[in-house]
């Protein structure tokens, strides 16, 4: 089983990296870009012994307790197979 976890800055938090990328894109002539948010992507391989429910629970805890800082970041995840 594989978990894909996406961590991104909260909408209310200024994302200086995203803002810089947006400015660069505008400079390069990509006029249609309104905002860019830069985040992180984690791929976690899980033991096949876990039930889907256990896997979801573990991944959610990993994402909440370790991979994100709740003050500035939020996350979503999916589990494959």
């Amino acid at each position, binding site marked *: 089983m594989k978990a894909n976890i996406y961590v991104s800055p909260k909408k*209310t*938090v*200024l*994302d*200086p*990296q995203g803002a810089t990328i947006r400015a660069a894109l505008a400079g390069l002539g990509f006029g249609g870009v309104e905002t860019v948010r830069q985040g992180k992507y984690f791929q976690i391989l899980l033991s096949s012994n876990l039930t889907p429910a256990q896997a979801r629970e573990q991944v959610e805890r990993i994402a909440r307790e*370790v991979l994100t*800082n709740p*003050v*500035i970041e939020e996350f979503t995840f999916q589990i494959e197979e």
Partner: protein
Amino acid sequence: MKFGVVVFPGSNCDHDAYCAAEIMGQEAQFLWHESRDLQGSDVVILPGGFSYGDYLRTGAIARFAPILSSIKEFASRGGLVIGICNGFQILLEAGLLPGAMLRNRNLKFICRQVNIRVENAFTSFTNACSERQVLQVPIAHAEGNYFADPDTLIGLENSGQIVFRYCTPSGEITPEANPNGSLNNIAGIMSRKGNVLGMMPHPERACNPLLGSSDGRLIFASLIRAISLMGASKPELIKAR
């Protein structure tokens, strides 16, 4: 009195903090991250560096270190803790101080001398400074852009928890004097109880005039005074206003 300096594998300002304590004529000792023993330290310093490489987020893994649980317990009893640079980031991640660090506004590591203004001189960390005194202390970080939600920020402002702000040499708080984009020019904050301080500038790098400034000594001198007061009339701590 004893300064305990925490050593994570990626700490790199641990020796500098140790030397600063020695310059101030105090005893210093290293505290290994895997230990839970604070060895009777009167004050604990979380020094700068990259704790565990900081690949996930600065300080994100360090908060799980065994030594951190002892530090939390020490702080809850009113023990003095100071986190400098990466140490500040760890205190935020560990929940000992509110808020979080974003990358610097210009996305670069910045190392330079800055000016900070003492916003509250009635603390265990600043009692040797005068109110609104401007100190010259260097910064060296890539993530020192302090962020907190509006309610937290108002709380910090109203309870005198903001200890230092970036300022001009004459003490004005201006956007130009803010090196990294921190909200309200915040350079250092303390806990509500007033015994845990986090600051991005490095006072341990400003203890020798040969290196450009010795203003950092005021912070160590303040700690020494606070500890001796605590020893005399414990457990009364100097409280935030």
